[in-house]
């Protein structure tokens, strides 16, 4: 048997250029589909979903199309007493979504929107190192919020997030 190879043959008439505008339009419109079934069901990961969408828009230099104020208010509403942040309003705080929230605020350069002192506690895990770096911890290497990797590693492998536009 061996490891499954899942190659796909790309037909000769397939598009040869990345349809960036269509991608950007899709993501810009995605958040407004509040009456969509799948959208509602995926509420349990909303904070991460927002982060994924924002990252891609940033790479396409289209971040301004997203509603910064609304998103930041949303994050504020998701921080709990314990300092952790939930995926959406009313959900329980969780490390995954706390990290996503920190990544979003880093993209928007608005870390003060949340109570930083309180949020640091969930980060005593390796997974939280990226978050700590984005929060400005001096003992930890700078982390790129888009790729969520240390900047010096990105430099060493010559991987800067190229703007797609």
């Amino acid at each position: 048997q061996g490891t499954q190879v899942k190659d796909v043959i790309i037909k000769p008439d397939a598009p040869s250029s990345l349809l960036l505008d269509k991608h950007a339009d899709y993501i810009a419109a995605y958040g407004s589909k509040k009456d969509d079934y799948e959208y509602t069901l995926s509420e349990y990961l909303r904070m991460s979903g927002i982060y994924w969408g924002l990252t891609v828009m940033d790479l396409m230099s289209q971040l301004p199309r997203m509603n910064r104020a609304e998103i930041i208010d949303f994050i504020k509403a998701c921080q709990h007493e314990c300092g952790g942040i939930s995926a959406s309003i009313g959900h329980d705080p969780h490390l995954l979504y706390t990290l996503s929230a920190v990544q979003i605020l880093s993209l928007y350069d608005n870390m003060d929107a949340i109570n930083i002192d309180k949020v640091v506690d969930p980060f005593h895990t390796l997974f939280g190192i990226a978050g700590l770096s984005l929060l400005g911890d001096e003992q930890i290497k700078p982390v790129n919020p888009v790729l969520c990797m240390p900047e010096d590693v990105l430099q060493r492998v010559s991987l800067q997030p190229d703007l797609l536009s």
Partner: protein
Amino acid sequence: MHGRVKIKSTAQQEEEKRKEREKKLKIYVAARDACFSKRKDGVWDDEALQLTQQLLSSNPDFATLWNYRREILMHLETVKDEDEVQKIYEAELFFLESCLKVNPKSYGSWHHRGWVSARLPRPDWARELSLCDRCLSLDDRNFHCWDYRRMVVKMSGVPVDKELEFTDRLIGSNFSNYSSWHYRSTLLPLLHPESPEPPSPSREPPQSSPPPSPQTHSHRVCEEQLLKEYELVQNAFFTDPNDQSAWFYYRWLLGRAEREEMISCVYVSRDEERVAVAFSRPVNAQSVGLLLVLDGQPQRVEWRSVHPRFKHSPVWICDLPPGTISDITNEHNLTVHWTEKPTHRDCALYTGRNESWCRDSATDQELFRSELSVEKTSVLQSELQSCNQLQELEPLNKWCLLTIILLMRALDPLGYEKETLAHFQTLKEVDSMRSAYYSDLCSKFMIENTILKMEYAEVRVFSISDKNLTTLCHLDQLLLVTHINLSSNQLQRLPPQFAMLQCLEVLEADNNSIESLEGVYHLPKLEEILLRNNKISTLADLQPLASCPKLKRLDLRGNPITQTSSIESQLAELLPSVTELLL
């Protein structure tokens, strides 16, 4: 899962679908809001259980609801008797099975099942194992299921040999099975340990004493069993040489020895009144309790790593108070203690000598624990023979080539150097997408060989030019080196780790692609740097050199920076100690 399938249909069908989804959504939202509102009010009733069940059956990844459900169940534990609790949790397990059918990879469902199984008054571990069997038969790499199975095995005390038989069955039916091989690698050392007094093979499950865990037990397997395993895994990769999992298991079998932890070298210099200590692995001087004793007196010194970047480093330095060892007519005895271990190393600084060091000889140190070093030479040779046979049948198989290289390095790194280079060349051709990885790995092995040659020759000159080096490593082994020649390679940087070359006097690195000199930092004896034909382009690139107080000669010919206007005066300002500058 959150994706949607596109199905083409007529406008009417679309409309019908839309109405249906709208209805579905309304029901879902109503249930969700009801759950949230009940939880807010602190309600833990039957209706709450039903609502959460309804939502979780179609959306088992909704983690918050599992949290709520657990709150309700824990409350019920306090008000119901044991039989009722048993029934409730059995129903819970039944419910969870249906959730797992919807999404067998839902973190929430598996976690909840583990939680329930641990709290069930009378658990049925046999049933849990059979659930795992069924799940794994559908997807033998579902790690959620493997983790759960490990928990069940631990809680229920399933004997290790039974689990080993389980992996026999899985591997027998399909060799390509990372998870099974991996699991096997954790079971074997428990059942057939290498230790001189193996626990007597017992038929009863472990009773009073807890079963040895992989954490407390050695990872090695006794020889008799190992030979059987070699046969098993050879069958696997001869049958399908392209399957990775068997090769990785094979490498694990052949074994990687743990390097003994110790202070590998102590170096002391009168000129700088400095002590440098090299460890066998990166440490944090503060946390290992590093203590310097000079002539019987503990010294109050500040330990620092070679570069501010490193909190963990194999090399640490400290400065002695001025005048302590500067008089060359005095003899001194130093001891460096690694109090945490505890271990120590002595070093005597004799009269008339400017510097001194202490380290084990090359043969004692076993500098480079090869990837496959534990096995006896005879075993390794026989394995090399088998792999060579396979290589003749499958000359383009990269796994085979790579394994042959590792075996050769374990047997005789210097003796097989030519063959190793030839095999790497072949590897880069057959697996060109990973040629950078092979270049780096080959660089590492060539550096190891050069260090070995240097050790055997007992000189402090490290010369490795024109060897297609793409990266540097093992720099902690070069603490005593005074001259280094890296010219005519493909290096792009001298990384911060380069600062471990504390004794360096001459650095030759012509004809590379060096842009960064971060590691040429506070090298107290460095006098000459040759960087002809590299990629130094800005003054900032040369900033680290300013920290080298004895730097006299600098060759920058053939670098982009020479095109900068007024570069000479800028360099005179940055590096005032340099008297001979070549541009």
